[in-house]
């Protein structure tokens, strides 16, 4: 299982990657959307965890471009915002929409259930976790 983590908070994304690796989930991370596109071009990922709001390119834009590269790729959105509009936009496109701070176990749960579901990146019923 290989996961791509994209968030402009380096301290967050690096620690998250390391903690996932302890749990045998291989995770690459980057703080820049361009880098994420480059990485996904080089390697095959099962799932991408994206920050919704990032400078220059929003998580949603990045998601659309990654989807184009890898139609089977699944997505989980992370956000510090939790604005209603973000939730509406992101929950259309992703398996899960999680508001920071999120316990690692929850992220792992979501990753597992996303990957277990197979099929497209979108979760059935368009439901999403939006507990704050």
């Amino acid at each position, binding site marked *: 299982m290989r996961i791509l983590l994209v968030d402009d*908070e380096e*301290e*967050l994304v690096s*620690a*998250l990657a*390391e*903690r996932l690796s*302890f749990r045998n989930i291989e995770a690459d991370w980057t703080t820049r959307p361009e880098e994420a596109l480059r990485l996904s071009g080089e390697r095959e990922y099962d799932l991408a965890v994206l920050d919704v*709001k*990032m*400078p*220059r390119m*929003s998580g949603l834009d990045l998601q659309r471009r990654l989807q184009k590269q890898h139609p089977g790729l699944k997505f989980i959105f*992370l*956000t*510090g*915002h*939790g*604005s209603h509009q*973000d939730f509406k936009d992101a929950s259309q496109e992703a398996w899960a929409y999680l*508001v*920071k*701070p*999120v*316990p*690692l176990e929850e992220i792992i749960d979501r990753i597992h259930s996303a990957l277990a579901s197979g099929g497209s990146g979108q979760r059935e019923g368009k439901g999403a976790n939006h507990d704050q």
Partner: protein
Amino acid sequence: MALHQAIKPQFLHQAAAGSPFRGMLDYRQAWLATILIMALVTLTPLVVTGLADYTITERAVQGEARSRTARVVSNAKRSISNYLSESISALDLVVLENSADQLKDPDRLGGILEHLQVSFLGFADLGLVDQNGNQHPYVGDYPLDRRNYRGEAWFEQASRKGTFVSDVFLGYRGAPHFVAVVKTLDGGGGFLLLRAALDTGRFNDLARLELIGGGDSFIINRQGVLQTPSLLHGPVLGRVKLPIPPHSEHTEVFETTDAQGRSQVVAYAYIPDSPFILMVIQPTDELLRSWYTTRIQLLAFLAISVVLILVFILGVATYFYNRLHRADMKQIAMLEGVERINRMASIGSLAAGVAHEINNPLAVIGEKAGLIRDILKYRPETVGDERFQGLIDSIQRSVERGGTITRRLLSFTRHLDMRIDRFNLAGAIEETLGFVTKEAEYRSIHVQVQVTPDTLEIASDRGKLQQILLNLITNAFAAMNESGRLDIEARLVRPDLVRLTVADDGAGIPEENLEHIFEPFFSTKKETGGTGLGLTITSGLVKKLGGVIDVSSTVGVGTRVTVALPLVCRPVSDVEEEEGNTCGSF
């Protein structure tokens, strides 16, 4: 409601409390002006008519009193004149009806006297005086037969004029009397004088007048000697202490003062064909007594009317100004509430950004702490203290980051009341921008700040200045698209004046809207939740800091808002304003 409550306005001693919307109306001044104008408009005609009425009535009453006195004198003059001419006529009749010889008969003369005494009052005696002044015969109670009057004044005058009435005198008999004389022809070409003495009883009666309002009436001769007794000037033949009034055919009235300085009305009439002058003296006070009562009533009525009108005006003015004041106070309170809401709403609209700013460090803290736990659990032996140290530092930095934003929020929402501090302007601008940097980043809006000089310090209300800035910045952001540019500039343009400019390259404001943008509830964003109060409040806040705000805009080019502020905000310590409410303008 007690009277003083009804006429004393609530705002009389109330200083305007702090608010950017104060100073709408100086109630005390407007209230006073209204009262003055209303009082002037209502009282002037009342007082003028009242005083005119007073003067006219006073003159009429005085004129009436004088003419009443004159009438009394005039009537009495006629009575006395009649009395004298009756006496003379009686004597004329005697000399017509009797020949000289008959008159010389003492018995006949005695009979005539008896008849006269029956028909006319006052005849005391009767004598016939020949042209040499010898009196014979004489009938009467005194020994005056064969007395010679030649050389006496009355003899001369009677001889010349034909009739004569004398002054009152004592004569031989020692009692006051006067004589009436008529002339008739003697048979031998000479003349005879029929002389009658009249006692003063009837004469005194005629002179003693019934005077309404008191006073004195008497007769004097032309030398000022009393001919009848006077209440004020003494008995008969005394001298009056008055100048002898000039001769007049008619009854005359004049005013003078007595020895005590009291005003008195004097009326007099010369009795024709006699030496007598009838005089009436009445004290003015007595004559005008009824007027004085009326005058008090008139003045009291005027005074009561004035007081009632003033109370009414005060009451009405106070009532309306109280209502106006209450309504304004309510509006001010409402606007202050709106100001508070605006401040909270600014934060509300930034909530997403603020949440991001707090949630991100929290997430970092969570992951770093989780990582420490993971390391201890999975690979405690492989990691050195340095690694832990770095993770803990990272946690502390994140805590500091979260703390900064909550402190900033608190400082922004606190201090609604005016508080003047000295602070670094660049720092305050930076802090305000902290609320919007994330939004700017996501929307790729380039924010440029320039403070000249960069150490510029300003003494003002930091919270209000930041609210002004935040309102202007969020307005600018709302007008801007992705990749816009926002320039914030602060410059010391005069030793006492700072100019703060917020310029965007957004949509701009159409000219027809530009003049309305400070009006309350003017909004072009009503559908999207605009209240139309943002710039109203901002302009109120600027005023409160003693500044002025100006907006220039071109559609499609951008909007530039300039706020000029005094470098040092000096609280206006006007009597009207509580200290520290508002800054004095530069």
